[in-house]
């Protein structure tokens, strides 16, 4: 029989502290939809997606009701669109994207990720087709999310691809100028892209993944904040290792919720359970914030010295608790610091406490990079590329995933506000210092060689 205190602590976590399953992402291999004719390709895409994903939303709702936990998003991740577009032209890219948009809409799915290309060592014609189509695709579809992997620890950093992405990001912003460059929020430029990530915009299905699987992303910043506050409220002076222990315990519980829900959804759908992504994913809701966790740990102004140490401790404790809770951990599994989606981080930027450089330092110890950062619309393409190069190199050298999701907001200058609404939140335009001073470096092109794997100091 369950103990009363066990029941009450779970009820507290689920109903008072906003724990939810942030996403149930159905990972689906679409490679067998490839066809020489566009009509045939799009028909096969529609049939496979609606055939495999039509019960996803209904199943998530049923399982969520059984356990009393909301499942906020139901998403689809697919094998890279570049696989489907081999031998096709750019017009086909838009047709494929629109088909993905319509088929997922028909299933009630929120977003579809995997309009992707892996170009860390070189760009194939199909990859180029995906990349060049992004301004059209991200401005003319609602649900389609894209990711481009430009670097890996084994291959190094593809500066040709990064230079191209700097230009394309500005084109996407221009194509979605009426939505303040929102198209860029649906694109992540990665180093070491994870193959089973359930979170958008970077979800896709990598090589070696099964035909179909259910991957889970949990939420939980507010649960961690509440757990830390409860401990601190007892009045006893706590050391950082005691606070890390509390985070670890909370992460264990949060991960268990994700695995329970994921396995049941997978069973109901008759497909494999994939992974739980441990990442603490904030929302713009007050309190549901990774920044708030750092404040609770004692960083009064996010961006102040100590912020990097605090986020490293948080990320490590989350991984330790989660890894003990489940043997099926994957995806990014760290702590997200998406500026516009996290009310406390957004406030720190607005107040001038948190700079791009400090965010970069923080991302060297947590997933997943420079995320949802609004910058001036007149930032040069080479500077955007150089920011991507810096962030990708952090991932490559540290053997971890990093990503960049920058939004150059057309017509906006430092200090202006943009609001995207919903989970995307709002942001103050951040200063990009030394803008324009990296062009010669970026324009060399080529590849930064893969880092040496010995002499690790």
């Amino acid at each position, binding site marked *: 029989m369950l*103990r*009363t205190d*066990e*029941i009450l*602590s779970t009820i507290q976590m689920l109903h008072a502290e906003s724990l939810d399953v942030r996403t149930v992402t159905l990972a689906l291999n679409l490679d067998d939809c490839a066809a020489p004719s566009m009509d045939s390709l799009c028909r096969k895409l529609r049939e496979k997606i609606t055939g495999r994903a039509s019960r996803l939303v209904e199943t998530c709702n049923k399982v969520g009701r*059984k356990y009393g936990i909301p499942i906020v998003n139901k998403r689809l991740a697919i094998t890279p669109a570049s696989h489907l577009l081999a031998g096709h032209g750019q017009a086909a890219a838009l047709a494929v994207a629109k088909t993905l948009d319509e088929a997922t809409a028909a299933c009630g799915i929120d977003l579809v990720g995997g309009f992707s290309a892996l170009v860390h060592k070189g760009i194939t014609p199909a990859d180029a087709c995906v990349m060049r189509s992004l301004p059209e695709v991200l401005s003319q579809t609602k649900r389609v999310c894209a990711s481009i992997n430009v670097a890996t620890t084994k291959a190094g950093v593809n500066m040709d691809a990064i230079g191209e992405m700097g230009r394309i990001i500005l084109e996407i912003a221009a194509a979605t100028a009426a939505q303040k460059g929102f198209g860029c929020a649906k694109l992540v430029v990665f180093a070491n892209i994870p193959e089973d990530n359930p979170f958008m915009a970077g979800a896709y299905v990598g090589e070696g993944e099964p035909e179909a699987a259910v991957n889970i992303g949990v939420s939980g910043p507010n649960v961690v904040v509440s757990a830390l506050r409860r401990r601190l409220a007892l009045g006893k002076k706590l050391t950082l290792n005691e606070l890390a222990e509390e985070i670890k315990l909370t992460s264990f519980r949060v991960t268990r919720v994700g695995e*329970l829900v994921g396995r049941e959804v997978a069973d109901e759908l008759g497909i494999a359970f994939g992974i739980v992504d441990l990442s603490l994913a904030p929302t713009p809701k007050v309190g549901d914030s990774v920044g708030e966790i750092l404040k609770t740990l004692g960083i009064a102004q996010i961006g102040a010295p100590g912020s990097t140490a605090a986020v490293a401790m948080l990320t490590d404790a989350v991984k330790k608790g989660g890894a003990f809770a489940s043997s099926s951990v994957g995806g990014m599994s760290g702590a997200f610091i998406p500026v516009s989606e996290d009310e406390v981080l957004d406030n720190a930027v607005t107040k001038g406490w948190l700079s791009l450089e400090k965010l970069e330092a923080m991302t060297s110890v947590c997933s997943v990079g420079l995320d949802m950062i609004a910058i001036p619309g007149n930032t040069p393409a080479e500077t955007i590329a150089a920011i991507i190069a810096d962030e990708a190199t952090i991932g490559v050298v540290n053997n971890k995933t990093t990503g960049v999701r920058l939004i150059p907001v057309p017509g906006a200058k430092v200090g202006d506000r943009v609001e995207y609404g919903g989970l995307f939140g709002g942001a103050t335009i951040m200063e990009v210092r030394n803008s324009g001073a990296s062009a010669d470096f970026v324009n060399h092109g080529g590849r930064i060689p893969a880092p040496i794997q010995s002499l690790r100091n």
Partner: protein
Amino acid sequence: MKTQFPNAYVLNVLTGDHPGIIAAITRSVNQRGGNIDACSQTVVEGFFTLIMVISFAKPVEPDALATEIRGDQATGFQVVARKFVPPVVKPVAAVDRFVLTAFGKDKPGIVRRFSEYLAGKDINILDLFAHREGDDFLLIGQVEIPATRDLALLQADLEQIAAEEAFTVKLQHENIFVATNQLRFER
């Protein structure tokens, strides 16, 4: 359950909680040569209660047994003893375990309202906890729901009752509590 000796009795004890209650009860049982076959005890708001199955090699008179265990009236024990008859095992329809939690401003009739609803749906209460804190009342029931019941309809009915009583109610499968609290979670 097969008891140690053929003559089995069930004891129910109620008294104010204090150290030595179980020692006193088991001393009496042991002095008669009895064996303790099963036991569960709890303390609610300072009151101790216990239910115990005991067995003896030779038959005993239940009232005499209760009197003997009650012993000195100064202990304040209320003891009831009766012959233990193992429950008839009926074929049980498939059930699933859920946890009902209800929370709101206390008033008479809350437990009755929810328990009558559950009884009407053949839902067995395995464990019940209720507690008044200030003006608030918390009710937690661990229940077995026949597999044939539609969970969504039960939840809708309970939410309707909760709305009428100005309570918040949740009915959740027990696995969410097991998964989040216990190290080993068998699926």
